[in-house]
C-alpha cells in the first residue's frame, strides 16, 4: 500500500469515526453522552488492542503501527474540541460552573464601594497576544460593570499600548452597557511604564498614595508580583490574584486574600464572556479529563489485581 492509499485509508477511518460519533451525540442528552463516550472508547481500545499486539518488528512498515494509541488520542481529542466549539457557536447552553474567585472579586469591589475608595486592576504585565492577558481583560470587563453601576473609582495601570487599547475598549463598553457613559473617562486605563521593575515601582507609588480598597491582579505575572502584592498588603487593601504561571502562584496564595489558580483564570473568563472558541475548548478539555480519570481508575484497579501490564502498555510513548 503506497503512501497515497495509506493516506486515503486513514482519511476514511477518521471520517467514519466522526460521522458515527455525530449520530450518537445528537440523540443523547449531555450527561448520558459521557457514559456513551466511555462505551465508544472501550470499543476503540479493542481496535487498538489487536493493533498493539502487532509485532513491532514490522516497524519498517510504512505506517507506525506502534503509535496507534497516539492516533486514537488525537482523533478523539480533536472530535471533542471541535464538536463542543461548534455547539458553543450555535449558542447551545453549555454549563460552566461559577468560579468561586469571581464571587471574591465582586465582594471586594462591593467593599471598595462601601468605603468609597478606588479599585486597582492590573491585567497582567504581558502583551495582548498572551492568553492570560486576554483572560485578564475579560475579567476587567466584569469589574468595570460593577464599578460603573456603583460609581466606584477604577484605576487600571498597563504596560503595553495594545493592552491599553483593549482595556479602554472593554471598560468603555461596560460603562455604556450600564448606562453610565458620562462617568467613563479615558484615563481609567492608563499606560504606566514599559520596563518590568519600573512598572512595579510606579504602581507601588500609586498604591501607597491612593490606598485602593481592592487590588485585583488577573493575567501573566513574573517576579515583580511579589513587590505588588507586598505593597498592597502594607496599604491594607483586599487583594485577589489570578495567574496561570505556576512559579508565581505560591506567592500570590500566601500574600493575597484569594487566588485563581491556573485554568481557573481561563474558566472564569470563559464563564464571563461565553466566547464560543474559549467555551468549546474548555468543555472539550473537561470531557477529556473525565475520560482520563476513568482510564486511570480502570488502570489502577487492574494493576492492583495484578493483571494491568497489558492495559498499561497502551499508554506508553513510543
Amino acid at each position: 500500500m503506497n503512501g497515497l492509499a495509506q493516506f486515503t485509508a486513514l482519511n476514511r477511518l477518521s471520517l467514519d469515526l466522526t460521522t458515527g460519533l455525530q449520530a450518537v451525540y445528537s440523540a443523547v442528552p449531555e450527561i448520558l453522552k459521557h457514559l456513551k463516550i466511555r462505551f465508544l472508547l472501550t470499543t476503540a481500545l479493542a481496535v487498538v488492542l489487536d493493533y498493539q499486539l502487532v509485532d513491532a518488528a514490522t516497524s519498517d512498515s510504512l505506517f507506525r503501527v506502534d503509535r496507534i494509541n497516539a492516533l486514537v488520542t488525537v482523533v478523539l481529542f480533536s472530535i471533542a474540541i471541535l464538536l463542543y466549539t461548534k455547539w458553543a457557536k450555535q449558542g447551545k447552553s453549555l454549563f460552566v460552573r461559577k468560579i468561586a474567585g469571581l464571587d471574591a472579586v465582586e465582594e471586594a469591589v462591593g467593599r471598595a464601594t462601601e468605603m468609597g475608595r478606588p479599585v486597582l486592576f492590573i491585567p497582567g504585565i504581558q502583551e495582548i497576544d498572551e492568553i492570560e492577558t486576554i483572560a485578564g481583560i475579560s475579567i476587567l470587563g466584569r469589574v468595570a460593570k460593577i464599578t460603573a453601576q456603583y460609581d466606584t473609582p477604577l484605576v487600571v495601570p498597563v504596560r503595553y499600548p495594545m493592552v491599553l487599547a483593549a482595556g479602554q475598549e472593554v471598560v468603555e463598553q461596560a460603562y455604556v452597557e450600564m448606562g453610565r457613559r458620562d462617568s467613563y473617562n479615558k484615563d481609567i486605563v492608563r499606560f504606566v511604564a514599559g520596563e518590568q521593575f519600573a512598572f512595579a515601582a510606579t504602581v507601588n507609588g500609586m498604591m501607597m498614595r491612593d490606598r485602593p480598597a481592592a487590588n485585583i491582579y488577573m493575567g501573566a505575572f513574573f517576579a515583580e508580583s511579589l513587590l505588588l502584592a507586598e505593597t498592597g498588603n502594607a496599604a491594607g487593601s483586599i487583594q485577589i490574584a489570578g495567574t496561570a504561571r505556576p512559579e508565581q502562584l505560591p506567592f500570590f496564595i500566601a500574600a493575597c486574600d484569594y487566588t485563581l489558580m491556573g485554568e481557573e483564570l481561563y474558566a472564569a473568563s470563559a464563564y464571563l464572556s461565553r466566547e464560543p472558541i474559549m467555551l468549546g475548548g474548555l468543555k472539550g478539555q473537561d470531557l477529556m479529563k473525565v475520560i482520563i480519570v476513568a482510564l486511570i481508575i480502570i488502570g489502577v484497579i487492574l494493576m492492583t489485581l495484578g493483571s494491568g501490564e497489558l492495559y498499561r502498555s497502551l499508554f506508553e510513548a513510543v
Partner: protein
Amino acid sequence: MRTIVPVIIAFLSGFVMVISFFFNPDRAFIGRIESEVLVWVTIVGGFTLLLGVVSITRVNWHAVQSKKEGWVYNLLTLLSIFVMAIPAILPSSWSPLLGRATGSIYDWLFFHVDYTMMATMFAMLAFYIASAAYRAFRARNPEATLLLITATLVMLWRIPMGEAFLRLFSDNLPWLFSDNLPDKINTYIMSGANVAVQRGILIGAALGAASMSLRIMLGIERTYMGKG
C-alpha cells in the same frame, strides 16, 4: 484573501507534522517534506528576533527625535544597539575585534556588561522575597497556613543546617518520625503529593496547549495574526 491564504498555510504546515508522525520518516515521502519544512521554519523563525530589534530601534529613534522626557537614555539605547551589532556583522577576517568569537568587541561587551546586568537584575529578587516573607506571607486562611508550613519544612530540608535539625527529630523520636525524616520529606512530599499535583497540572496544561494548537492549525484561533 487576507485570511484564507494564511489559514491554509498554517493548516498545511501543521498537517505535515501531524501526518509524518504516523509514518516512518525514511520510508514515506512525507518524511522528506517534514525535514525540509522544519529547516524553513528555523530560518523564518530567526527573522522574528530581528523584528523585535527593529521595533526597539524605531521606538527609541522616535523618542530621541521628539525630544521626549529622558530622551538621552533612549539615545544611549540606540548607541548600544549599534556598538554591539556593527562589529559583529563585519567579517572577522578583517580583525579579531570583529565577528562574534572570543576576543571580539561583541563577546567582550556581552560578557562584561550585558551578562553582568542580567545576572544582577534577578539577584534583586532575593531582597524582594525576604521583605515579602516578613511583610506579606500571612497564614490568613487554612490553605495559606498549610502552604507556609510545607514551605518551611522544604526550606529546612534544602539546607544542610536544616537537614541536621530535622534529623534531630527523627533520631530522638523514631516512633513518631520513623528513621530518616529528611528522606521522608523527599519521598512523601516531593515524590508523593508534589508529583501528583504537578502531574494533574501538567495534564491540564497539555490539554490546553493541544486545544490551542488544534485551533491555530484549523484557523479557528487567529488572534496571533492581528487585526485588519
